[in-house]
């Protein structure tokens, strides 16, 4: 298309949007005071690895792809790396590996196939996607950035870059075991002590099946936990807070969650716990365990 020196901007054309994809970086910090969610990538580990492999800055924006991948056409040269869930990515119908840097030429098409592991895959691109930075972050969140999810024919911008010959990432060990783990690491939440002893035990013994309504705001489960905890004054919550509603629903708040809530916060996932649970598909079982 355009010569790279006069117009360094490349575009990804969305041929098919897939199920649900959004641009995300590390997140939006410092705007909780306005009631603005943090947002940011669900799986921080996968994000970090992909950017590292490309030699990107650690906050460069990626495309977070959920379950069914999009079909994307690139119109300028660059390098990409895909990590997190294995959704069988292909460049021009040739299967590619995860956590590996690939060169892209103008006209190349990236598509996805069958899901093999995990729920959320990450497409990192050299220098990151250049969507507008609002309140210090490029992460899409509708009330802030106006974008909800990837749309057909949408254009995503990136800075075109000539092929880079060698990537010295042989030293990077990538752990993919967590994609198959069902154990979710948590700490006690502020209202954990208000649970009767029997429920304090039960919450770590029960297998919980991820509900289909789960999204970037919260993960929910098929099972419920009968309780008579009272509501609390609206109080701070953050990604990883686990709320218990009067009807017994456990709600694990995720990156796009509200900044405050009125349900008792019985557990708080660690960052590793968030990483593991964000790769579970609806119908898979998880179990909480306590880190002290």
């Amino acid at each position: 298309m355009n010569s790279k020196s006069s117009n360094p901007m490349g575009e990804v054309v969305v041929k098919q949007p897939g199920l649900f994809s959004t641009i995300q970086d590390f997140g939006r910090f410092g705007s909780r005071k306005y009631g603005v969610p943090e947002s940011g990538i669900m799986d921080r580990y996968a994000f970090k690895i992909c950017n590292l492999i490309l030699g990107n800055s650690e906050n460069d924006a990626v495309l977070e792809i959920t379950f069914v991948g999009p079909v994307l056409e690139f119109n300028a040269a660059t390098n990409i790396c895909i990590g997190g869930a294995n959704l069988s990515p292909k460049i021009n119908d040739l299967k590619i590996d995860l956590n590996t840097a690939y060169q892209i030429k103008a006209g190349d098409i990236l598509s996805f196939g069958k899901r093999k592991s995990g729920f959320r895959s990450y497409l990192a691109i050299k220098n990151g996607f250049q969507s507008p930075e609002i309140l210090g972050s490029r992460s899409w969140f509708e009330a802030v950035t106006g974008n909800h999810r990837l749309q057909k024919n949408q254009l995503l911008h990136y800075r075109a870059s000539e092929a880079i010959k060698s990537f010295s990432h042989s030293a990077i060990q990538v752990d993919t075991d967590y994609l198959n783990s069902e154990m979710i690491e948590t700490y006690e939440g502020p209202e954990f002590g208000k649970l009767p002893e029997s429920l304090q035990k039960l919450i770590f013994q029960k297998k919980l099946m991820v509900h289909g309504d789960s999204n970037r705001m919260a993960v929910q489960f098929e099972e419920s936990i009968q309780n008579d905890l009272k509501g609390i004054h609206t109080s701070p919550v953050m990604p990883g807070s686990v709320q218990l509603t009067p009807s017994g629903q456990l709600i694990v708040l995720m990156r796009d969650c509200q900044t405050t809530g009125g349900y008792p916060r019985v557990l708080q996932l660690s960052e590793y716990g968030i990483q593991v649970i964000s790769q579970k598909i609806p119908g898979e079982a998880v179990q909480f365990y306590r880190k002290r």
Partner: protein
Amino acid sequence: MKWKSISRMGDRGILIEFPQEISEKILQTILEAKVTLSKINLEQKVEITNTYDSLLISYPSAIRDVYSELKVVSNALRATNISKNIDKRIFKIPVCYEAEYAPDLNDVAELKNIKKEELISLHSTPVYLVYFTGFLPGFLYLGGLNQKIATARKNTPRKIVTKGSVGIAEDQTGIYPQESPGGWQIIGRTPLDLFNANSKIPSPFVAGDFVRFQPVSNLEYFQIEEEVKQGIYEFEIIKSNG
């Protein structure tokens, strides 16, 4: 300074809990603690936010040494004395209570067995304390609603509440900063933009500010709406100390 507990909230938060009551006095204590904590050196660039009875220090990444951070925080709080009064800011928020903006005004007046005019007056007389912002970007948690007009939420929430709608739910009153589903009783609407992500300061209110609702006519509503659109509307702010 009095606080109830300081504890970790997972691996990237520290939660400080104060006595569980909703009062201006507790809020003052919390805001003073917030000022103190904003001056201390912590291992990351944190944000400190409050609710009615809590302060959350949120870290972008997992805290490396949580015990040392907890200690720094509690030492700082222990060394804090109650400071002097801060200047009060009262923001005037124009609200049109006329029928087309107030679908539940008649019902609420009827439920409370008062005239519409009295309901409007009871709602627009007090100065409301801004405790914090939460729920939706720009949504203010306001204290000070007259108990006489406290009203239960609607039995069935609306799928869409228009942006700017002013409502009552139990002993709370609030403004929907953007279109959203909601069950509050809607008694008016403001033409103001309470949250603008593209502005350097997306919302002018901070915890500890006050707001007062200023009844306006249909015509004034349109005029203000136009000024807001053109970006020339300026908040009317009354300052007082003590």
